[in-house]
């Protein structure tokens, strides 16, 4: 049953969660750092948002808090990798694990957001504006000198060293930016749900990765196709759940639709 309400839901979620493939594009494709902090950063972003909103801080301040928390988690991963010489994957996992406890301490297991604080409650237009603006800023940022140096860290570290600059420093910057995006996404998602749950970040890594892969079947660059990828993934999920069949098959259906979508794209590219 396609209705306006379902389409709106798909659009809303895909806009909010499109920051995840964007973050993953920065880490995995630009600085070539396989970052698993994403799930933890999403959790801490939503936790900080819920905490600040429930203490009646302004929406703007709460969003900033979440972005800051996300950025800090990126910094933690970067420090683990560059100063303690841990493998990128391991440092991401460690940060994510640690962030679970921190989120639990910050926001508890469950917070229902006070609806009165949220002035534009469930109004997607300003959320979309925030996301588009963030996307645009990130897009512009990657065109600056610093942005190009981030590309260089991933592709050719010797170039960075040749310019007498530290690759570790640029990896750190990349991770901080990527996870700040995730923190923002987590905050917006919590606001959209109207409640915070410690489990709301479960599966976000898969959402990010699948959206990124779908986006990459359309374009390999950092642009608004990342949003299209996210939209496609949300459509796939919605279709999966609209089947009136045994619910145990859902994940299999999702997986097959993703495979079919990518396959079609590959055929087209030939």
């Amino acid at each position, binding site marked *: 049953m396609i209705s306006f309400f379902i389409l709106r839901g798909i659009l809303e979620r895909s806009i909010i969660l499109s920051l995840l493939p964007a973050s993953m594009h920065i880490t995995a494709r630009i600085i070539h750092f396989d970052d698993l902090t994403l799930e933890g950063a999403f959790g801490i972003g939503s936790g900080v948002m819920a905490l600040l909103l429930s203490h009646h801080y302004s929406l703007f301040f709460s969003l900033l808090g979440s972005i800051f928390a996300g950025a800090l988690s990126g910094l933690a991963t970067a420090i683990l990798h560059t100063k303690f010489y841990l493998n990128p994957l391991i440092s991401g996992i460690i940060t994510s694990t640690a962030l679970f406890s921190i989120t639990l301490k910050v926001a508890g297991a469950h917070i229902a957001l006070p609806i009165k604080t949220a002035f534009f409650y469930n109004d997607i237009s300003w959320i979309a504006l925030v996301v588009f603006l963030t996307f645009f800023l990130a897009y512009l940022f990657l065109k600056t000198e610093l942005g190009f140096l981030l590309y260089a860290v991933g592709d050719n570290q010797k170039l960075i060293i040749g310019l007498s600059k530290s690759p570790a420093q640029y990896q750190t910057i990349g991770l901080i930016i990527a996870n700040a995006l995730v923190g923002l996404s987590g905050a917006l998602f919590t606001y959209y749900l109207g409640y915070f*749950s410690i489990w709301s970040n479960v599966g976000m890594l898969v959402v990010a990765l699948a959206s990124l892969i779908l986006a990459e079947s359309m374009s390999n660059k950092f642009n608004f196709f990342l949003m299209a990828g996210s939209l496609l993934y949300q459509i796939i999920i919605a279709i999966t759940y*609209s089947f009136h069949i045994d619910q145990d098959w859902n994940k299999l259906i999702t997986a097959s639709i993703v495979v079919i*979508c990518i396959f079609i794209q590959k055929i087209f590219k030939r």
Partner: protein
Amino acid sequence: MNKIFTHKIFTRRFFQLLFLIFFLIVFYGFHKFANGFHAKKKTEFTVGIIKTATHPALNEAQKGFIDTLHTINPHIFFIEKNAEGSVATLQIIADEMHSDPNINLIYTIATPALAAMSQKEKIKPIIFTAVTDPTILHLNQENICGISDAVDETYLLDKTFNLLPKSHSFAILFNPSEINSVLSKNRMMQYAKEHDYKAHEYAVTSPLEIKVVLEQIESVDFVILPADNLLALAISLITETLKQRNIPCISCFPVEKDVLLYAGTDYYKAGEKVAAIAIILLKKEKKPKDFGFTKLNVDTLKYNEILLNHFNTMQKTIHKKGAL
């Protein structure tokens, strides 16, 4: 500008996207066709069921509900959805349930499902079970009613101290990432403080940690488990380990064997009771606000005689040794 927006490539990408959208529409048409077979059945009412995750207790709540409604009226069609623990998926399901005009009533199982559905649906009646405390969700809608399954911990602890009169300390195993578990633990700690017993709290957040934590527990007279999904899933591990260590186990949810005493909700019965409300709501004889939030009575307090004798003699001998 980016190269992607040069004319030729852009057109190609545009057609690729168009093809994909076309494919999705064809697929959706097929899926509508597949779902059409259900709609042809003679149905009087349609009930949407949202389950938060696959879990024995939640499955029981669903089974009890469906069985009862089916015997009362065989012409009820059920749309069953399972979010498998994902909050994002719950949103999709809630959107679908809200926008399906055929659905007359929505049955939510466990807190996250209720939270998601109550945000979306303000008109169709929503009923719930397996929610310990609906007040934490700040629900102020008139279309919600249901049965909460809060267990009276003080009553259970009173009973336990009656059965094991020599005990003076206990351990609470709880899950800090479940709000119900934390609230239950707090009430137990309060009880211990009031009655001058020693209570130790042990937190577990994943099945892996349970074994480790159970081995840490020392010098307590019994271990008590609040109603919690994680503990319920790992119950056989918990009872087995505690049996080896000779520590009695008390639980706030029904367990088949190896626990000394349990109080708790029979989720199948809870499903049956909710079904009785549901049939009244479906016939529009009463409104959801007439029912409100009711609590399931804790009448299933059961204890294991053999274990009780065993632990009582054990406590007595320990006591004697201590006296000597």
